[in-house]
């Protein structure tokens, strides 16, 4: 009996085609091994990379060697120290070392592949300029061109459902062609997961429609450890309203650039500059985390905007000043950057013009997942032949993503692309386990076969209600306990009752695909809620109102989650240290994050 509609054999399967996956494929192709890229969308037009700002990071000395203005006082070692310190010591120092070592190599690759660069400046509030600014669309276009030029085989609009393992090693994967509904067995020696975050699990997020945590969830199902799952970064000043612009971070991007940074007021519904109560010294220019928490507390206290945000206001300025801001923005975007992005060219001037008469509703959107699949500095996981690169991996950032995720994608993609061919050449193609395939096929088709149950739309609403209210930016014991229980229920009950109702056609069936994606989103969110409940402190991107201190004596450790039948096994890893010793003592959250004033306790 035929197990699947199609069978493909390759050496290396790469799941994801953009910043991490694409870079890995180009690097691995130098070795001459067989490669197949599978992507859920279309290369260059899917995933989060295309939407990046995009800034890349390299230390000043390396930047100079690459031909940028740079700063010779800077070095990879200083950059390393900044990253470890600012991510509050939870990061894997071996991974951080690789990050600073490979960052210039990645930049060189991208420029060789024709990625245009806009400017060299300070990004992420660095002490020294370490930012090379380009755009996400230019980044992915360069990768796409190179992949097409090299003729690397590509399956687009195809969703990988699960990994196949044989005797503890990777033996392949099962995928679904979204357009035809056909199932595919891929037999291979190694797999690189480069599938990004699980943004869509949150009702308000900055990611595209396809980021549903597929790689992280399939790794978890295959028995891999997930780490730092509680570290989810929320981006403040993201457009909440109207629906057409919801999720755009264009005003946040602007808020980091001179002269816009100093002219912004954030107001609550009473028209008060609420940052006065949280960080009177720095006000709206406080850290990203403090601005996020302050905005969220205002909303909780009923002082938010009608659609769950706060107000971005320029009404205190003169109209002529706003005209000047529009001109400055247009000059940079059109003349210096020559950027054609809608967000910068059309939306931004429109929003600024609007600011002359009204305020804009902005809020905290799920933006970046610092946790994910546990890997080492060579992107290896605990399953032989399985690697993870980019946002789906965890460990690099510790508790705050303090530098470029684009660089992370490139660095880890490049490392994975270097290391996998060596592995591939050292092993034979493993046999696949047909019972495993049958079980996965049964899981895939279950929502199509069921006659009644919960619809994907209904379950998605349930998921968003939990993630929005109980696993959001500000967390506490009671909400997290409820969230864990409800998500457990969804994962082991609702998911099994998912039912595709509108059409049973296998072609382009939105309900069917969403059913499979929901299982992944719920898995990731469950891990996030579980890890959040365990961590009894606040650190970096992670904030608990019932444990507001950053506790270096008890919590300088990473939480590791592993599937054990229908339960989860919890363990702790000490941070991996190479050069910088871990600090001791308890700090208030504000001290730890670098802000010394104000109380963040709920009144």
């Amino acid at each position: 009996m035929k197990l699947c509609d199609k069978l493909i054999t390759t050496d290396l399967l790469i799941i994801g085609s953009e910043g991490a996956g694409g870079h890995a494929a180009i690097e691995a192709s130098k070795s001459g091994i067989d490669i197949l890229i599978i992507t859920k969308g279309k290369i260059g037009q899917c995933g989060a990379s295309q939407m990046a700002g995009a800034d890349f990071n390299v230390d000043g000395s390396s930047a100079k060697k690459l031909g940028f203005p740079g700063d010779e006082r800077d070095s990879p070692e200083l950059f390393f120290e900044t990253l470890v310190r600012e991510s509050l010591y939870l990061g894997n120092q071996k991974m951080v070392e690789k990050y600073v070592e490979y960052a210039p190599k990645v930049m060189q690759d991208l420029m060789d592949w024709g990625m245009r660069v806009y400017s060299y400046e300070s990004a992420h509030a660095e002490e020294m300029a370490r930012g090379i600014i380009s755009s996400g669309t230019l980044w992915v276009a360069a990768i796409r061109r190179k992949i097409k030029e090299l003729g690397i085989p590509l399956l687009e609009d195809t969703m990988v459902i699960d990994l196949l393992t044989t005797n503890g090693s990777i033996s392949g994967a099962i995928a679904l062609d979204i357009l035809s509904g056909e199932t595919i067995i891929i037999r291979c020696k190694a797999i690189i997961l480069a599938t990004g975050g699980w943004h869509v699990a949150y009702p308000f997020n900055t990611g595209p429609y396809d980021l549903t945590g597929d790689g992280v969830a399939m790794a978890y199902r295959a028995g891999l450890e997930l780490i730092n799952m509680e570290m989810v970064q929320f981006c403040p000043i993201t457009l909440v309203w109207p629906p057409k612009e919801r999720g755009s971070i264009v005003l946040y991007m602007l808020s980091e650039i001179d002269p816009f940074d100093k002219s912004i007021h954030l107001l609550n519904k009473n028209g008060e500059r609420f940052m006065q109560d949280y960080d009177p010294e720095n006000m709206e220019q406080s850290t990203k985390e403090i601005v996020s928490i302050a905005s969220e507390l205002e909303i909780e206290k009923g002082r938010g905007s009608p659609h769950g945000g706060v107000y971005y206001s320029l009404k205190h300025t003169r109209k002529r000043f706003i005209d000047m801001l529009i001109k400055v923005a247009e000059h940079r975007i059109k003349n210096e950057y020559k950027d054609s992005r809608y967000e910068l060219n059309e939306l931004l001037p429109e929003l600024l013009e609007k600011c002359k008469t009204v305020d804009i509703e902005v809020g905290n959107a799920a933006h970046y997942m610092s946790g994910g699949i546990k890997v080492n500095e060579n992107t290896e996981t605990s399953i032989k032949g399985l690697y993870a690169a980019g946002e789906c991996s965890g460990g690099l950032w510790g508790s705050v993503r303090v530098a470029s995720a684009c660089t992370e994608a490139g660095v880890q993609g490049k490392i994975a692309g270097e290391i996998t061919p060596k592995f591939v050449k050292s092993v034979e193609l493993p046999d696949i386990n047909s019972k495993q395939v049958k079980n996965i096929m049964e899981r895939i088709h279950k929502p199509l076969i069921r006659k009644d149950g919960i619809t994907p739309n209904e379950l998605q609403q349930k998921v968003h209600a939990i993630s929005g209210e109980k696993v959001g930016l500000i967390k506490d014991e009671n909400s997290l306990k409820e969230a864990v229980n409800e998500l457990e229920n969804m994962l082991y009950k609702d998911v099994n009752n998912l039912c595709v109702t509108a059409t049973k056609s296998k072609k382009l069936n939105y309900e069917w695909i969403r059913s499979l994606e929901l299982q992944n989103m719920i898995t990731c969110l469950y891990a996030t809620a579980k890890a959040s409940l365990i961590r009894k402190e606040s650190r970096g991107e992670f904030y608990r109102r019932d444990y507001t201190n950053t506790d270096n004596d008890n919590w300088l450790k990473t939480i590791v989650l592993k599937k054990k039948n229908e339960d989860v096994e919890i363990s702790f890893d000490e941070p991996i240290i190479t050069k910088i010793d871990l600090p001791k003592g308890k700090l208030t959250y504000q001290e730890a994050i670098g802000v010394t004033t104000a109380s963040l306790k709920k009144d």
Partner: protein
Amino acid sequence: MWNIELKKIINVKCFRFDPEKDEVPYYDMFEVPINGTMSVQDCLEYIRENLDSSLAFFINCRLGFCRRCLIKVNGKSCLACLTEVKGDITIDPLLKDKVVRDLWVKDL
């Protein structure tokens, strides 16, 4: 002091075709409530989440990055995510002879 929203209902006339079971294409009519500035894509999402989950259309970045949500609105080609809905609309696929299902066109 803040934005005043006007809620209204618009009619969306939407192209439907499943080459597997329909002999010829047809149109479905949907009523969509407009609340704040909404794009054509927001309307399609509303339909799929509330009225008819079998509707096939492309959605990804929602903000003009991926440029893959090309469709025809009132006969004109445009990106669904960047096109604001101001009144009743007719939505067609970009190329009617290349339809996989409904508004999703082959090689998009």
